């Protein structure tokens, strides 16, 4: 009884993929349930919450409202595609260090929106951060720690260093005394 299935060609986090999907599938359903990239979340399935936000050619896009066919021939980046082999994207590290992810369910979408912001500007004002994240609902944090994290990541990217200030204070005291 499954619906008609067709092959769709996608580039997801740099990988070229050809997958068979029901013709009515959204990009989110394809990512989560066909390709198995479950980082992008479904919070409402109607474009209200922003938890499904991915980057489509670098632009934050609600993948739950995007028919998968609209992603053909375009670069899809999900939260799983932000990091490099060296480690987390500065935003990802800063979110952990600053307590920006509580339950973490909105986090993948917020990270995609924030990454697009930092691609445009490495020195965003707090108002610009608020505007960039206005389509992503967070029910845990009150957003304050998220702003702190985005600002810390922007500073890191500007300096070209690790997320220094935050990480120093966050290293467990005494950990550096471990002897091998």
């Amino acid at each position: 009884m499954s619906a008609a299935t067709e092959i769709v060609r996608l580039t997801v986090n740099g990988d070229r993929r050809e997958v068979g999907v029901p013709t009515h599938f959204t990009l989110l359903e394809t990512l989560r349930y066909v390709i198995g990239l479950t980082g992008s979340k479904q919070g409402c399935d109607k474009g209200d919450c922003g938890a499904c936000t991915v980057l489509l050619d670098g632009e934050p896009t609600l993948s739950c409202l995007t028919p998968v066919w609209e992603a053909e021939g375009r670069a899809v980046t999900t939260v799983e595609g932000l990091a490099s082999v060296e480690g987390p994207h500065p935003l990802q590290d800063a979110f952990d260090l600053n307590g920006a992810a509580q339950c973490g369910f909105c986090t993948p979408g917020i990270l995609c929106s924030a990454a697009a912001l930092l691609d445009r500007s490495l020195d965003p004002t707090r108002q610009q951060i608020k505007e960039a994240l206005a389509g992503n609902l967070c029910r845990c944090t009150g957003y304050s720690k998220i702003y702190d994290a985005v600002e810390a990541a922007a500073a890191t990217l500007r300096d070209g260093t690790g997320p220094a200030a935050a990480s120093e204070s966050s290293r467990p005291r005494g950990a550096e005394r471990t002897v091998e």
Partner: protein
Amino acid sequence: MTDGDRNMKSDLRLIGTAMRKVEGLDKSMGRALYTDDLVFPGMLHGKILRSPHPHARIVSIDTSAAKALEGVHGVITGQDMPTTYGVIPWTPDEYPLCVDRVRYVGDGVAAVAAVDEDTALRALELIAVEYEELPAFFDPYDALEADGSSPYVHDAKKADWNGNITKKVHLEFGEVDELMDGADIVVEGEYFFEGTTHAPIEPHCAIASWQGGGGFERPSGESSGKLTVWSATQVPHYLHRELARVLDVDQAHVRVLQPLVGGAFGGKSEPFDLEFCVAKLSMLTGRPVKILYTREEVFYAHRGRHPFHMKYRTGATADGKLTSVDAKILLDGGAYASFGLVTTYYAGQLLCAPYDLPAYRFDSTRVYTNKPACGPKRGHGSVQPRFAFEVQIDKLSDQLGIDPIEFRRRNSIGSHTRTINELRVTSNGFLECLESVERESGWKERFRKLAFGRGLGVAGSTYITGTNYPIYPNDMPQSGVQIQVDRSGRVAVFSGASDIGQGCDSMVAYIAAEELGVPLDYVRVLRGDTDFTPVDLGAYSSRVTFMVGNAAIDAARKLRSMVQEAVAEQWDVKPGEVLLAGGLALWASDTERQMHIREAFNLAEAKFGTLGSTGWYNTPKDVHGEYRGGTIGASPAYSFTAHVAEVDVDVDTGFVEVKKIWVAHDCGRALNPVLVEGQMEGSAYMGFGEALMEEHVFKDAEHGRAGLHDGPSLLDYRIPTSLDTPELESLIVESIDPEGPYGAKEAGEGPLHPSIPAIANAIYDAVGVRMDRLPFSPPNVWRAIVVAREAGMLRKPTLSDRADAQTSAPESVATPEFVPGD
């Protein structure tokens, strides 16, 4: 404070610093797995058919066409699980699927499992249900006064109650009437708190896998099976018990796993229909079954904050001392009991701090209506009365010409005392909270002195840090933690605590690292699985840090003693002179004498055998009033909070902009200040949303179908975005509680309470208008402004305003008398 104290440590190294969360990077990297991220071979997808009627008899259900549809593997109805359940053992009034009656639009009547979601949805359309519609109750006063001419929502619980009454509580402490009569001033007010819902971003989701036979037998020897359920729940232990009971499976053959939970706030703190349905469908089909609620279903599952109709009389002396409080409260409970028995008590019991009340009486009645069931939401049962009472205090201080912070200071109950309802209060940092918000907000220079339209308001509150009595009566510990260490120096902590984002998995890791002297990244937390973690009762009532934290200290100290003893023997020193810190064992007298912690663990393993320990915590049981209900509200410790809110009110539109909220909270000790601030800010944010935007309301017959949710989506039910949310400033106050882990108390719920009344009081400071009903949305505020303008009262109040300054919203809710409870 010495190490000899059961829960203290004099040389804290990690505790109190900013630390990563154990699952923090998993969440930001997209690796963290939530229930809907799990897929199992052969897994089927389930869907639940829901009632379109608010109140109806089920005449018949025909599932034959659905069963015949290709791709459908199982269809169940209420008859397949005819056992009621409920989180409170005394009020099990829900069936997993309705058996003979539906009680709200959205009540489940049948469920299917099919190869995919589309097929399951098609199958639902093929199920024919014949209903006989019944008159429905939507207004709680109608429900209360019903005469039986149409069927009540439930059968009567007592001979002299109608069947719409869940619970009545009437409690009286001190000479209420005498002290009220003798008061220099009495303020009366009526307040209405519209219901709100949790709206976690993750919808409820559950998966079940039944392994029939296979050697799993009942005690009688009859073949049975093993049931495994994964669920986005904040109470795996209660779910475990109810699954076994309702589905008649041996508790030992039920395993509940809790993947990471994407927010809950009380909205996932009891069993739900989907958990029973996936279990039954898996037992029927022999295959794993998943059900994921749609966002609409999350709104109908609800269990959110009850609408409260409240009436308060509050007396005080001319110099601003409270004398007597008299409260009448009607709770609109929706279709089922949920935690309602507790809510009805909390509505009154949790008001007796942070102020000293010489006399107090409350009548609290909860009624059923044909709407989704209300339950516990962050600040369970006490956010609504706190709103009313803190506005009452603002009115009193205003009429007496006393600064409202000073008024609160004069009435502070203090530490190490008892409330009028005999709750034991230990540490209390309320005065420090008041001082903190007073200083940081520039209160003295700005209160009553800002330009018309701009205002400051203050409010205070208290909240429990867990409950002394568990939901089902038993003498076992409330929390257990198990720790083992291995030869690599690694520490494994087995914790049954429910991390719903608040950070309790990290909290136990911080404690293990602190006590055993290992770096934080040597600690692994194994959690969320009833097969291998000790029982913890769940993430509710702000109990986790206090109880699980104390259990973790207990377990870790037992191991620490063994390690100290083994190292001391090696060095020929006293065990008390061996420090474990920073990945080392060190001699206190000469820290140059040291060894790697791994070596220390190995010495201990050689001396004592394989290393492991269990720790536990149980609550004090002898610290409450000896009256019926006296145990409800009894907590091992209470947190305290004060907020100042600053608002800007547009008198032409009624639009209120909250510019900033200063949040001072006494959390005992901040184990990780970053996480404590996160709880304070998240709480203040949630209260702000309830104050200005959120309304969980239903259509009436004139505006659509009666009982239909007014807007079950995150677009229509507006929660604050980044652009709506005010600046939030966290001000941590540490009172170091004598019984908390290193002195810690709760931080997850208390800091929500004052947001709402602080904003209401700030609106009054801005434009002289009292907002006694929620939310303070533009239409509600604008109507109050119109009335005030016509009365000539739309103006900046002055510091010495007297009673004539009072104005009220025109639609302040009528509160008819109702019969006091038993």
